[in-house]
């Protein structure tokens, strides 16, 4: 028995049910969804099969297989590489908070308007210009070999610490720019409104502008964080035994490149979840900005 009119408007007193047309619509959507998912699967499988086929049938494959995908070599090198990787993890876990702090301070220094603070502002601008311009590996070299050569009291001589310091200097400049972009993206009316409510400049910055700015730049900050995780491998040039260096040592002992693959797998295992998390945050922010988006 039909309980609704053709266009789905409920009759008087009858409970609302979906119209035939709506049900048909939903069926069609489901069918289209299933169809596109299966097409995507088939196409991916076909693509992987073709690429794998081309690679494995190439004349050099047995040799590449021996040199890059040697399972025994992989398992042999993994414990050492993993131990080295722990050092990479320590470096970026300690460096990241320092980077965020330095970046924020530099961004705030660039935002100072009082002419008295001009030297500070100039210093912040010079810092970002210089340290964003130097290739990170050069900076690691300069800090790692230059600071100890000064023979100053109290300079740490641990290469991991020096390398971490170089990374902080380099990434601090990038992150400062990210924060500054976030602060600049907050609409001036927010600041004006805060000031008109009687908040001082500092209070407006602290309670109104910064919270919004930081929330906006979380995805690019996470992006920089992923980049930092990979760049900890650059500290290898100073001599600590981190993942890349351990891989290199194993590779030179047996003339086989598989240990590098072990190091690559570890780095990927770390950065991929972070990348997905960044995507999730970005999508959430998008939803919130959409009309009717909650918080």
């Amino acid at each position, binding site marked *: 028995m039909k309980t609704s009119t053709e266009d789905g408007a409920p009759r008087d007193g009858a409970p609302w049910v979906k119209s035939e047309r709506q049900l048909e619509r939903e069926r069609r959507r489901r069918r289209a969804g299933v169809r596109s998912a299966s097409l995507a699967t088939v196409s991916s499988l076909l693509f992987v099969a073709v690429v794998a086929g081309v690679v494995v049938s*190439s004349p050099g494959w047995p040799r590449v297989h021996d040199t890059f995908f040697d399972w025994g070599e992989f398992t042999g090198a993994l414990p050492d590489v993993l131990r080295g990787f722990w050092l990479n993890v320590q470096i970026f876990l300690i460096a990241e908070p320092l980077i965020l702090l330095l970046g924020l301070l530099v961004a705030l220094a660039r935002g100072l308007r009082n002419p008295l603070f001009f030297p500070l502002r100039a210093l912040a601008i010079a810092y970002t210009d210089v340290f964003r311009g130097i290739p990170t590996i050069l900076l690691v070299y300069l800090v790692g070999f230059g600071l100890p050569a000064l023979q100053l009291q109290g300079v740490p001589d641990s290469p991991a610490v020096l390398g971490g310091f170089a990374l902080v200097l380099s990434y601090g400049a990038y992150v400062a720019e990210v924060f500054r972009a976030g602060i600049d993206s907050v609409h001036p009316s927010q600041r004006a409104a805060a000031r008109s409510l009687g908040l001082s400049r500092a209070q407006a910055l602290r309670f109104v502008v910064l919270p919004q700015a930081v929330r906006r730049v979380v995805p690019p900050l996470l992006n920089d964080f992923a980049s930092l995780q990979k760049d900890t491998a650059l500290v290898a040039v100073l*001599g600590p035994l981190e993942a890349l260096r351990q891989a290199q040592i194993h590779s030179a002992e047996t003339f086989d490149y598989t240990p590098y693959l072990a190091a690559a797998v570890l780095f990927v295992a770390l950065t991929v979840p972070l990348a997905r998390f960044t995507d999730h945050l970005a999508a959430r922010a998008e939803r919130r900005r959409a009309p009717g988006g909650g918080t």
Partner: protein
Amino acid sequence: MSRRYLPLLTGLAALVLAGTACAPEETSTAEAPASCAKEDLNLETAGKLTVATDKPAFEPWFSGDDPSNGKGFESAVTYAVAEEMGFAENEVAWTVQPFDSAYAPGPKKFDFDVNQISVTPERAKAVTFSDGYYTVRQAVVTLGDSEYAGATTMAALKDASIAVQVGTTSLQAVKEQIDPGEQPKVFNTQIDAVNALKNEQVDLLVVDLPTAFYVTAAQIDGAKIVGQLPHRNGDTEHFGLLLERGNPLVSCLNEAIGALKSSGELQRLEDKWLAAEGDAPLLK
């Protein structure tokens, strides 16, 4: 078949074609040369011996970062081997090959690589080595005013922080023989390791003996050699020429090296370019 999937299929077909089309011809594994006469050899460049080494090329193995001047032990040995095989000096072409990629699989752009490469059984699975042309020992270098300067046993070095260059057998020697409490620091280049000692970032530097003599003589003022490490488990360690795996040229190189050994020429070159081992005591 609807028109919509045409581009997709075309793409796939192109991929398959590309994959099969750019597969190179199977290179037939070269036969052993009929003789070691210059004409019979299957060389990188016909009529020329193409020799690779790293850049910078270090003293005392090479001189002035120029392998083609015949100065320095490995340069001299290369020209001696070439001469033995019937190549004139101008028929030896040098090319740069970083150590890390010298053992990459696939065709090489050199006939052989001469770069203080120690022969080990593990390495010999991946490449082909010639017979050894130099028997090498590892030596420990420190600054003259260091607490380790007077050490006579390996046990006395256990607490030191040690620098080595990555990819060298020096590292293995340190791990197996000194087995220090602190992990050795491993540097990209020999220069970095030497500088680490210079800056007092480490207590000791472990390098092969001729390099150790060069470091103390020319690179760090007041550095001294503490002593030589004994050979690992009694095996001698030697440098060999590195070739692409299975390159039949190795038999001719070995012939030449054998001739240089028996004529005493190799020893003469060693005496000429590498300092005598008299003043580096063996550590116990």
